[in-house]
């Protein structure tokens, strides 16, 4: 690993650690002793863990989508994968209730995963390998799924409606600590799978035939990366609903700081994604002061201008 890559990874880790500490401690109500400790352990810690894993997962998901589809605009939300997951999760809420823990969560998670996978598979078949068609189809699918999800709200009970609203806005819940840890499994698997063999992902940037002739099982790696990216996005949706721009912006920030090699980009995207969502969570707490901050609003408010800056920067560079 080169000096710059080590430096960038260290910086990303410091960002993640700093924002984690901030999310744990900033804006704590002025209580002392037992109550503060209880808030720290049973509210702040599960929230911060959720943000860490979901943010990191979205960063990884965006990186893999952008690589496999050879498109810097790809991300689970743009591609409609998150839209499909959200619609399926809202439908599951309608039929199964809002039980956040245990079976309800698992079933909603399964619905989100199936919704995401079916959306991706359908769009890929429709697009026939054309990235522009895939992206445009994804935008259309997202809009349609959002309308569909809103339509379902007509039949929801007030309690379900309140839940689904937070879900559509994007929020960080305070689940039992076991749940974010459970969803950390796909993240850990992705890191373990692609970090030591980041070079395999690098070869996907060559012409397919050249990557094959260099020893890469192109189709298998591509399929695996797409599946993992979808699982990560569905996991994020299951826990937190719609969190726009994390998967889109984070891989760009990672490339800007850590260079282009995936052995570094994979962990950097995870760490920066975690830091981004943790920062949004903290900002939500500081600005809104509510228990359930609309984190998705903050990620979009920050993510959109950052992405515009990156876009303008890259298009300027292409001019003669």
């Amino acid at each position: 690993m080169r000096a710059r890559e080590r430096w960038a990874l260290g910086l990303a880790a410091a960002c993640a650690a700093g924002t984690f500490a901030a999310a744990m401690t900033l804006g704590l109500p002025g209580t002392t002793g037992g109550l503060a400790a209880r808030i720290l352990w049973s509210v702040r810690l599960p929230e911060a863990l959720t943000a860490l894993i979901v943010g990191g997962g979205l960063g990884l998901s965006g990186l893999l989508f952008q690589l496999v589809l050879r498109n810097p605009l790809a991300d689970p939300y743009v591609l409609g994968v998150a839209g499909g997951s959200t619609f399926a999760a809202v439908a599951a809420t309608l039929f199964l209730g809002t039980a956040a823990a245990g079976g309800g969560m698992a079933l909603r998670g399964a619905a989100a995963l199936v919704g995401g996978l079916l959306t991706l598979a359908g769009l890929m078949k429709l697009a026939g390998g054309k990235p522009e068609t895939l992206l445009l189809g994804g935008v259309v699918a997202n809009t349609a799924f959002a309308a569909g999800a809103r339509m379902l709200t007509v039949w929801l009970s007030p309690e379900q409606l309140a839940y689904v609203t937070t879900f559509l806005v994007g929020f960080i819940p305070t689940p039992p600590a076991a749940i974010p840890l459970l969803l950390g499994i796909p993240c850990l698997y992705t890191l373990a799978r692609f970090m030591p063999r980041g070079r395999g992902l690098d070869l996907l940037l060559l012409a397919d035939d050249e990557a094959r002739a260099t020893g890469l099982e192109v189709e298998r790696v591509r399929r695996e990366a797409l599946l993992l990216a979808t699982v990560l996005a569905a996991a994020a949706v299951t826990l937190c609903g719609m969190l726009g721009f994390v998967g889109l912006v984070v891989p760009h920030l990672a490339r800007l700081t850590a260079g282009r090699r995936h052995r570094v980009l994979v962990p950097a995207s995870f760490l920066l994604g975690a830091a981004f969502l943790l920062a949004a969570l903290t900002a939500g707490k500081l600005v809104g002061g509510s228990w359930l901050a609309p984190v998705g609003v903050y990620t979009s408010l920050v993510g959109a201008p950052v992405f515009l800056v990156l876009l303008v920067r890259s298009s300027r560079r292409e001019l003669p």
Partner: protein
Amino acid sequence: MIELRSVHFAYPGAQRLLRGANLVIRPGEVVALAGPNGAGKSTLLRIAAGLLAPSEGEALLDGRPVESWSRVARAKQLAYVAQSPKTPEEWRVSEIVELGDYPHREQPPAPRPLAIRLEEVRTRLGLATVWERRADSLSGGEAQKVSLARALVQDTPNLVLDEPASHLDLANQMVLFRSLSELATQGRSVLLATHDVNLSRLFGQRLVLLNGEGIVKPMPEGAEEQGRLLRQAFGVAFRPVELSGTLCWFPDPRGENPAEATAYSGAREDGGPKGPGGR
């Protein structure tokens, strides 16, 4: 060693492109494959590299069917450069070239250290001045050399190169063909597609032609036979010029392609030595 035995191939719904092509490239040999556009040169190269399965016949790599090799084991034996290679934007040249080391990350390790192989291709292909430049700032020819360098770092006994000289200037073409001859003297087998029917022969390399019939024909000995084969393959007349003991062939603008011949004589009658189809 690369070997094709009566290879037939047709793309789905299209006419048969290859109809019993035979070709052997022994260790120490450079074979240049020429032929008209659409004759199936790239297809033949992809079959030889194990990237495409023939409809009939077989492709052998070091005596074993090419598809029987595992992907990594094959990548240690054969390197390939596509006709339109991709050099990932925003990557540095050194990083792209290093990608060629991928198969050697798995056991057994490469016989020669990566640093030595990198230094060797950097010098051989004259990449020192662009080594730390980003790929999106390279010219077409420089990018082509970078892709070739990546394949050379793979350090394989067999090389399959699809038109490696198409974007190179004349000096770089000389560098390329000389390098290929040197690599062959180290015992490598090199198969390349080209549109230049002379350069490889000037370097003592074997030229074969893929004509419209989908079979591979070696360049014959006699001048008359050579001219006839070239005319039959490309559909235009050729004129010979002897250069360092090698008979070089150039398409004759006043040759037998009726459209070209008429345009040329018309231009001359207007009173000037203008090119074919002159303005």
